[in-house]
């Protein structure tokens, strides 16, 4: 861990997280911890087949009161997550499968019981009659005519096709070097420590449906439940208690959540669904499965002139609400050019429906895939021109002198020095020393390789970007409400949801920066639609920029009101007041915030005539000066040892040089980045949800779906650059997703560097021993053939 940081408790300080005390003592409260009189549990009966027509769901008479099928949920509207990109095909995503089942694990019915075990017994007693249909399991094959159809009415399996062409013919024709590659990423499951869970009941006193749910977006869930259940939004309250990780899985409305809420309305008693690990693995949270054909056109030095790409995303059976099935591929097309300075681009993207669980935006959304594709391509170009990959990469990066920079897909890179992050990574990983070491055989016979991966991360992109996608959710001004308590403490209310990001601490640090109140006396309230301003929630690395900016602005407004009262109490002018250490200072003395608050709340006879009647509570909206986002970036560098006999890879060293603008709390940034990097290591080396030809998932436990563990995640050495964004309050950029984006590129480039002398190259991940050995065997066979000829 570094010691980078500023003294004090404000922006830049390495303040320990306020929320950790309860979590370290096991005193957090998650949906599964809630006890309530009369609480019952539900379990889902799920489809055993990937694709089938539903002939009958039979409920034995003794279970009539306890089992629920799609017929009973007829009043629940199916989810329709459309986007306005031309050509997007609409589809219904029902709470329970209707007419057909479209993936193995899709909910078909559910049962209620006093315990989960009894609910599962009851599910087993239902009879499901299905007529099997040919499954669609391969996205490339599903694009071809004659494929079975997931949604028959469409006539094909394409949710969305996009095409872009920017000066492609003109610039590609100038190329001296052409590099072609095919890349594949496996399907992944996000695997937060806490799976999904929800508890719902009807509150007669409040005349409200109350839903506790493990979500990143409580207000969106409220809107979604009201919309699909046909309720006024005022009659729905959503509470997100402690949430044990989300990573994007919990920013959507789940069909199970909808079914549960319907049941609470019907039964008027508390009911809960707790997703178990098997449900999570086989029926939810799918991500990452991209396929690329990439052709790069460069000059003889390796300077990229034009890029041609075809991107296919296997988005599964349904369009998730509200983010839709089109966002992943559209983002892939927009982000593939990465941090590079070139001007010719042609890209087609295909969002393909298959009989797999729906694709959900996972930490990094599209960028882990595009970063992998462009970073491997950059190394392939360097090989083709016979130069050091780090040098070729450096020459292609957007230089700091070009900032702000509009790239070939019109992304507006606001600030930063990408080359400096690469230079520092080259220095810290010791590239020259690795190159020297590679000249001698390793004593243990393994092969050493070094790889780099540089990315940009669009964070906190706003209104215009989302409006262009036209999905059901478009974020606008983010609001925060702050309130001075009668004893001089501060309550901060935000509609975003902290689910591991440490916002109870970082937002308090921003408030402290403005008002000087001790963070220990600042309470950040989030996760309850009844208590917080409406917000689209926490996703897209937006919360610290958006909610942080809103907290700053609302504290500034509150500060002015405090100063006006204090000026009256100190018999000076408002302009002479300064906020310091929880006190207001003027030329004739000082007064505590507690005294200011006491006067407002309890001694109003002492208030000035011109006091702001808004009092010591302010709600202010904020968005950055541009909607195009603040771009964070980083370079990851890895040194690996590859055992060419066993295909095993060990990460020997890992360096990150990151820049997320002004750091609010370096320790939190490092924690976020470590966690994301662990997930990226999973993408690179371990995680893979395999489906067989029948569309059956072949991993249903963590014994089969491998996540990196403590032994597989190396010590990560992290270094910070700090280039404030010119467009955001305090220059803050988002950082939540970045760690997960770069590891596959850095690690697989390092693997390829190690096996290059054997003539082998890997382009599919995860880089399992089997894939590596197959790549090596292909190389061996090629050489044998070459020798024979």
């Amino acid at each position, binding site marked *: 861990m570094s010691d980078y940081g500023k003294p004090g408790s404000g922006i830049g300080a390495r303040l320990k997280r306020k929320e950790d005390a309860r979590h370290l003592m096991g005193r957090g409260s998650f949906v599964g911890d809630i006890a309530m009189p009369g609480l019952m549990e539900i379990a889902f009966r799920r489809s055993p087949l990937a694709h089938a027509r539903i002939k009958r769901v039979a409920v034995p008479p003794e279970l009539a009161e306890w089992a629920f099928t799609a017929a009973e949920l007829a009043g629940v509207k199916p989810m329709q997550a459309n986007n306005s990109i031309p050509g997007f095909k609409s589809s219904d995503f029902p709470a329970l499968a209707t007419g057909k089942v479209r993936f193995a694990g899709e909910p078909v019915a559910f049962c209620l019981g006093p315990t989960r075990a009894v609910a*599962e017994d009851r599910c*087993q007693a239902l009879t499901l009659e299905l007529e099997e249909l040919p499954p669609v399991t391969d996205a490339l094959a599903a694009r071809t005519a004659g494929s079975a159809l997931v949604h028959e009415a469409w006539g094909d399996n394409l949710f969305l096709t996009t095409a872009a062409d920017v000066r492609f013919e003109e610039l590609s024709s100038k190329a001296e070097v052409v590099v072609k590659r095919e890349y594949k990423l496996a399907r992944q499951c996000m695997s937060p420590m806490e799976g999904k869970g929800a508890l719902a009941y009807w509150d007669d006193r409040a005349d409200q449906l109350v839903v506790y749910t493990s979500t990143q977006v409580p207000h969106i869930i409220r809107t979604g439940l009201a919309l699909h259940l046909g309720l006024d939004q005022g009659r729905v309250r959503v509470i997100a208690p402690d949430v044990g990780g989300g990573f994007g899985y919990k920013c959507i409305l789940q069909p199970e959540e909808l079914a549960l809420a319907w049941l609470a309305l019907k039964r008027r008693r508390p009911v809960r669904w707790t997703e178990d*690990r098997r449900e999570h693995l086989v029926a939810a949270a799918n991500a990452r499965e991209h396929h690329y054909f990439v052709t790069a056109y460069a000059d003889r030095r390796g300077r990229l002139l034009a890029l041609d790409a075809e991107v296919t995303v296997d988005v599964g059976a349904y369009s998730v609400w509200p983010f839709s099935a089109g966002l992943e591929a559209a983002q892939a097309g927009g982000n593939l050019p990465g941090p590079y300075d070139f001007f010719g681009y042609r890209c087609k993207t295909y969002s393909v429906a298959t009989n797999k669980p729906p694709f959900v935006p996972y930490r990094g959304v599209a960028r882990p895939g595009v970063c992998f594709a462009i970073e491997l391509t950059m190394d392939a170009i360097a090989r083709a021109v016979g130069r050091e990959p780090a040098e070729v990469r450096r020459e292609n990066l957007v230089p700091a002198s070009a900032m702000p920079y509009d790239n070939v897909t019109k992304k507006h890179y606001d600030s930063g020095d990408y080359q400096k992050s690469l230079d520092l990574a080259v220095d810290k990983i010791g590239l020259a020393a690795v190159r020297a070491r590679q000249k001698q055989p390793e004593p243990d016979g393994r092969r050493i390789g070094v790889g780099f991966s540089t990315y940009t991360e669009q964070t906190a992109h706003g209104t215009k970007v989302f409006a262009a996608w036209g999905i059901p959710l478009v974020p606008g001004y983010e609001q925060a409400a702050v309130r001075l308590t009668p004893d001089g403490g501060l309550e901060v209310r935000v509609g975003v949801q902290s689910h591991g990001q440490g916002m109870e601490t970082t937002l308090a640090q921003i408030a402290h920066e403005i008002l000087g109140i001790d963070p220990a006396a600042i309470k950040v309230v989030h996760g309850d639609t009844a208590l917080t301003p409406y917000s689209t929630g926490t996703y897209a690395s937006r919360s610290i920029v958006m909610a942080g900016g809103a907290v700053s602005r609302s504290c500034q407004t509150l500060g002015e009101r405090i100063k006006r009262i204090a000026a009256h109490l100190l018999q000076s002018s408002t302009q002479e007041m300064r906020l310091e250490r929880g006190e207001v200072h003027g030329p004739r003395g000082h007064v505590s915030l507690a005294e200011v608050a006491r006067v407002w709340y309890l001694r109003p006879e002492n208030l000035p005539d011109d006091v702001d009647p808004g009092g010591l509570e302010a709600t202010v909206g904020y968005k950055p000066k541009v909607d195009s986002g603040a771009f964070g970036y980083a370079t990851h560098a890895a040194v690996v040892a590859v055992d060419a*006999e*066993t295909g095993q890879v060990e990460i020997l060293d890992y360096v990150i040089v990151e820049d997320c603008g002004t750091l609010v709390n370096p320790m939190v940034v490092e924690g976020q980045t470590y966690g994301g990097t662990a997930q990226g290591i999973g993408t690179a080396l371990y995680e893979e949800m395999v489906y067989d030809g029948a569309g059956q998932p072949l991993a249903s436990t963590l014994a089969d779906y491998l996540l990196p563990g403590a032994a*597989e995640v190396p010590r990560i050495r992290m270094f910070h650059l700090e280039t404030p964004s010119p467009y955001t309050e305090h220059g803050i950029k988002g950082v939540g997703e970045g760690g997960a984006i770069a590891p596959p590129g850095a690690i697989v480039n390092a693997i390829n560097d190690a096996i290059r002398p054997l003539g082998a190259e890997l382009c599919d991940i995860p880089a399992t*021993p089997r894939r590596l050995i197959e790549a090596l*065997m292909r190389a061996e066979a090629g050489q044998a053939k070459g020798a024979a000829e």
Partner: protein
Amino acid sequence: MKPAPFDYVAAASLEEAVTALAAAGGEARLIAGGQTLGPMLNMRLATPSRLVDISRIAGLRRIAESGTKLVIGSGVTRAMLEDRSDPSPAVRLMCHVASTIAYRAIRTRGTIGGSLAHADPAADWLTALVLLDAELTIFGPAGRRNLPMPDFVQGAFATALGPADVLEAIAFVKLSGAARWGYCRLARKVGEFPEALGAVLLDPARAESRIVVGALDGAPVLLPALAERVAREGRGAATRESVGAAVAAAVPGLDPVALRLHSVAVRRAIEQALGA
């Protein structure tokens, strides 16, 4: 992911356990540490009408010396084996194998007998005990009987245990002080089930040599000819080609990647035993 209903009997003795198993007419399962059966129950992959818990039978948790042999009760946990300080080569091998399985919390509960009775081909004990030429004692309705490892393991998840049998103990010779072993486990992660296992034992004083290839589709396989040549000729007998050919001949049908992994595991185990 909660078990289907079952009834539960805590047996105080082997006799009680056998009686309780027999009374359930083949529908009962034994449970000891529960590290495999627990998840199988939760996922309803196993739905026994009755669980017979043998974890309270003190006799099953003993490790005893009997002449040149070590006798390990089937209820001995991996952690108890891992923590054993006996310097004899066979016990060092058992310590080493125990330490590679899963992680400590699982080793604290999981028993050697439970692992053998489940007979997952990738389980380390199957390979290690074939290597040590262990003999198993089974207690059943007709009394005790002893079986050598190869007769006990009949295939993937298949053993010689009858529906009312209890695996009681595992016995093996402690080997001579000069015996050498090698054990190579290729797993994707620390503690995961291995994708390939190679195990080698060379005890010239007792004129014994064995090589086992494990983590296959079925029971572990002995490579006697290779073992004999390695014992006689040493390193020269363990070339990439000779080991590959021996594994390919003994385990037909391996795909090229699996053949490579298993051959490497065997060769590295040989190198370890020879003190590379």
